[in-house]
């Protein structure tokens, strides 16, 4: 049965994020005036990295359960980290933790444990800045991911297979990405095939659609194409999602329209996570 490998420091897994940095990412996101897709995407990817680090953090430091990469595609295709990690394809999650480009201070309202809210200052690390320039070479991005992860799978034959999360506004400008995506999804470890998930950031004023099991209800051809490129969520991930309160039908795919994919991080177990930890 695939997708059961234990994720541990001696048997880590891998997340690779593919980030659309094309000129069209300057457009507004979801019709919201003043909020560009590129800015929304930068927030999403920084939050994803932050959540991954916190998931792996323990009192003594960060445990290397994952290797992580961020590949941008726009004017160029290549590593998109800024700061000390610039230019690197895959890095250990502990390096991500310790080497953000900068740490901003923000405020948020949190539960005070007694039914109220209090304002709390938090540190907000940044590894990735908004970029919007050039075309959308998605085929090249998938090919680059395949090149990086073929080696990773060879080096980690018993690991939980890599998860690739592609975030885009949907319009590839270097051809039909289907073949490149299928070739990427053919990579595998002994535990199963690589999982390719897609996040579609659209200018359409359509509410978030998460992990659909069919194309009905998706608003345009680009969304339908990205849905078709997305892997089925393994039963293992769906069962954890159900424990997190997110029931999914069999055949649900790793596809989100106009939302983020932070929840996917919680679909992979690295240990006991209390149901009352939010």
């Amino acid at each position: 049965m695939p997708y059961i490998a234990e994720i541990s420091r001696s048997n880590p897994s891998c997340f690779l994020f593919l980030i659309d940095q094309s000129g069209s990412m300057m457009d507004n996101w979801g019709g919201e005036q003043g909020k560009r897709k590129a800015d929304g995407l930068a927030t999403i990817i920084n939050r994803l990295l932050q959540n991954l680090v916190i998931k792996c953090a323990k009192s003594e430091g960060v445990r290397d359960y994952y290797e992580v990469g961020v590949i941008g595609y726009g004017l160029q295709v290549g590593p998109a980290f800024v700061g000390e990690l610039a230019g690197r394809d895959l890095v250990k999650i502990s390096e991500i933790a310790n080497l953000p480009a900068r740490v901003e201070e923000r405020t948020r309202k949190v539960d005070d444990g007694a039914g109220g809210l209090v304002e709390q200052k938090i540190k907000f690390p940044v590894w990735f800045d908004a970029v919007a320039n050039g075309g959308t070479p998605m085929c090249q991005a998938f090919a680059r991911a395949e090149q990086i992860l073929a080696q990773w799978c060879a080096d980690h034959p018993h690991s939980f297979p890599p998860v690739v999360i592609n975030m885009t506004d949907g319009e590839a400008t270097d051809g039909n990405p289907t073949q490149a995506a299928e070739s990427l999804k053919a990579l595998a470890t002994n535990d199963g095939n690589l999982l390719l998930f897609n996040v579609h950031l659209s200018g359409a004023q359509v509410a978030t659609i998460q992990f659909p099991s069919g194309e009905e209800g998706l608003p345009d051809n680009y969304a339908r194409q990205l849905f078709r490129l997305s892997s089925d969520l393994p039963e293992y991930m769906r069962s954890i999602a159900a424990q997190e309160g997110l029931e999914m039908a069999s055949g649900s795919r790793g596809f989100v329209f106009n939302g983020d994919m932070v929840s996917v991080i919680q679909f992979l177990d690295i240990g006991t996570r209390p149901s009352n930890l939010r």
Partner: protein
Amino acid sequence: MQLYSFWLPKQGMAPHEYEDALAHTGTGAWPVRCAVADGASETSFADRWAQLLAEAYVAGELDGPDGLPVLQEAWWQAVQGRPLPWYAEEKLSHGAYAALVGLTVHPDRTWQALALGDCCLFQVREERLVHAFPIDRADGFSSRPFLLSSRRGWRVAQADLALARGEWQPGDRIYLMSDALAAWFLITAEQGRRPWDALDAAENDLIHLIDRLRAGRALRNDDLTLLRLEV
């Protein structure tokens, strides 16, 4: 009365990374109290929290409503005050979480127990499982249990706290254990076999039994704690 205990970290982890805890009064005086706690691995300083909970139960400090706030303050005082990187600071703000099962055995041949989460108690009499608490079916376990939080201000609702009472007879065996071993125990019992026999027989060599069960995937790789009381 005899008391036996055993613990082992998750395979691939060092002993100092073990995040369960156990505590007991010994068997020299009544009542006999013992507890097993299991710190949630996705939270930080969970080992400290599990140890505080187990020791507080045994000391009777969780008997009243003021016990938990005192413990939460003790945990906070133990872990705060040092400069931490951004992720450790964030994680600390989430608090630590742990499951707990505690048992008090009285001289009048009764016992009472308290549990929150998936640490379990099993009572065996003459080769029969007569009590499984708070989980009594193997499919009752999940990787997302509801647990005791160290966050100051967090309070446990009475409805979430499981309480049990029972009677004991001389020769009964009562086992407290953390979730991975408890899940194996219940699966084995549901298959009509006697997991207590395997545990008792391997008492001097439990580590090899555990290694074998883990290798065969019959036992989930997790911190493991067992406390056995023969009354």
